[in-house]
């Protein structure tokens, strides 16, 4: 697998939201049907780059996420490709009913940008830490759910969801995170990628936890434990083939996500592995709300970092 060669040295860090901002700006230059909507959060979602370049195709709806989602459905039904951008706690959080009926039931070509997802939002506290959005989106028919592992993959995902007709949810983080992939790293909606081959345990991760999984694998290698790391960015459609293959190979799976364990990516993996019963350990938020703090402090306290993954690997090997 082609990954950033400086992965464990001084790796470049960029927030995944920047990848979206760059991607939608790039696509907007050639595709005149792209429209971006914002609910008073254009700068922090990085929609403002598009807004500055294409003011006539940018719609500021004010702090009104339900209307934003419904209006996007109307735009999509009139031939536009609207991007609905806000924080994940508000959209799809508050706008979920509109997402369900106006967008998904209608199969409207709306792209939903859920920024500032996960506990790594930090000091804003529990109200702003979206830890449920994967659960509430992956249950919706017609909806694609993507969680990119870095800014470059976020950019690739943005371009890919434009090409894919129908509703898509893109989950993004606020914090700068390592750029793991390169332009040559393969990316396809619905396809999980093995980022590190291993024999003993499979770590299946998404979003910011992919880097933590690679760190954990490197650490565990020193102990002689050989981990396979899978970047499972596509929560829906889920790549059953790759998940089953890695589970058959190692017989032990650790899932890792910056999201509630209940209903999240790990649960989706467990649904797949019900066909091939495998021992699974889940790393993620354990049925509680977060709190204010620095991102790194929170990731450590709520056990969503490489240490937590190492612990889960040790447990599963016992």
């Amino acid at each position, binding site marked *: 697998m082609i990954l950033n060669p400086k992965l464990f040295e001084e790796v470049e860090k960029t927030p995944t939201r920047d990848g979206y901002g760059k991607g939608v700006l790039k696509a907007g230059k050639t595709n005149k049907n792209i*429209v971006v909507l914002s609910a008073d959060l254009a700068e922090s979602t990085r929609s403002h780059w598009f807004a500055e370049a294409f003011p*006539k*195709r940018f*719609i500021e*709806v*004010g702090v*009104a996420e*339900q*209307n934003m*989602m*419904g*209006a*996007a*459905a*109307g*735009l*999509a*039904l*009139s*031939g*536009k490709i*609207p991007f609905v951008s806000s924080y994940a706690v508000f959209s799809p959080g508050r706008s979920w*009913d*509109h997402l*369900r*009926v*106006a967008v998904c*039931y*209608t*199969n*409207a070509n709306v792209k939903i940008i859920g920024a500032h997802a996960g506990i790594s939002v930090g000091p804003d506290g529990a109200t702003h830490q979206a830890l449920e959005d994967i659960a509430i989106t992956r249950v919706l028919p017609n909806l694609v759910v993507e969680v990119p592992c870095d800014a470059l993959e976020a950019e690739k995902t943005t371009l890919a969801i434009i090409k894919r007709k129908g509703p898509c949810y893109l989950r993004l983080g606020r914090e700068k995170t390592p750029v793991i992939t390169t332009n040559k790293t393969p990316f396809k909606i619905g396809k999980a990628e093995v980022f590190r081959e291993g024999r003993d345990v499979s770590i299946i991760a998404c979003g910011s936890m992919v880097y933590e999984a690679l760190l954990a694998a490197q650490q565990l290698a020193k102990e002689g434990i050989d981990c396979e790391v899978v970047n499972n960015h596509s929560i829906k459609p889920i790549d059953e083939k790759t998940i089953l293959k890695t589970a058959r190979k190692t017989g032990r799976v650790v899932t890792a996500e910056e999201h509630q364990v209940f209903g999240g990516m790990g649960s989706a993996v467990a649904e797949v592995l019900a066909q091939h019963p495998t021992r699974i350990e889940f790393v993620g938020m354990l049925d509680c709300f977060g709190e204010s703090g620095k991102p790194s402090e929170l990731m450590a306290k709520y056990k969503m970092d490489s240490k937590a993954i190492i612990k889960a690997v040790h447990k599963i090997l016992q």
Partner: protein
Amino acid sequence: MKELMLTANKIRQDVIEMLVEAGSGHSAGPLGMADVFTALYFNHARINPKKPWDENRDRIVLSNGHICPVWYATLAERGFFPVRELKTLRKINSRLQGHPHARELPGIENSGGPLGQGCNIGVGMALAGKMDKKNWRVYALLSDGELNEGCDWEAFMLAAKYELDNLCFIIDRNNIQIEGPSDKVMPLEPLKKKLESFNLHVIEVNGNDFKQVLNALEKAGKTKGMPTAIIAKTTPGKGVSFMENDYKWHGKPPNKEEAEKALKELRRQRTELL
């Protein structure tokens, strides 16, 4: 006018026949709005049943999706799909869902059931029309009970902000909702003033009077720089005396006996018109 009245009468008969066959559904709203639907589809709006998705068509969206029997009956009578299909309402394998499913049937522009969503969708369509400098117009049909929802008012603000004069809201002011008289459930008055304060051009009409409805639609089309809201005061259950103005008919269908009685009244009204 007489032609339109006869059409609305036929649509009301369809509605009763559909509801009794379905055994569930809403009666009062569809009967009350039959005239507005007829005015739009048989006179005012630029639509073509042979080309239901023509790019230049006017868009008619229904936000209070539960009154869809009148939408289905109007579309069928206008030739969008066969009238005989109306009897499949709410049945298995039917295109006539209990609440509308976008594009499942020719002419069904939006999915709707959770109140307010059609209002938001209508604004989105009008934004697209403005962006592309198109001449087609959007008619978003809402209800008074629906205005309890916050997202309708979010939509009004957005429509006014972008000066969507290609958009016309039509609010069914029938004064009933499922639990009782609308203003007892949640006071809306002064509705006209409220809407005006949201920078909408507001016209109040008797929604069961074709002349008034068509005049208002005409005026809406000539209004520049702001969206129009037509408050259509309708009689819920219009045309069926024992249903009129009784909120208990909001969410139930007639039984066989009641349907027979209703159809008898409607047929008599038809004869009187001829």
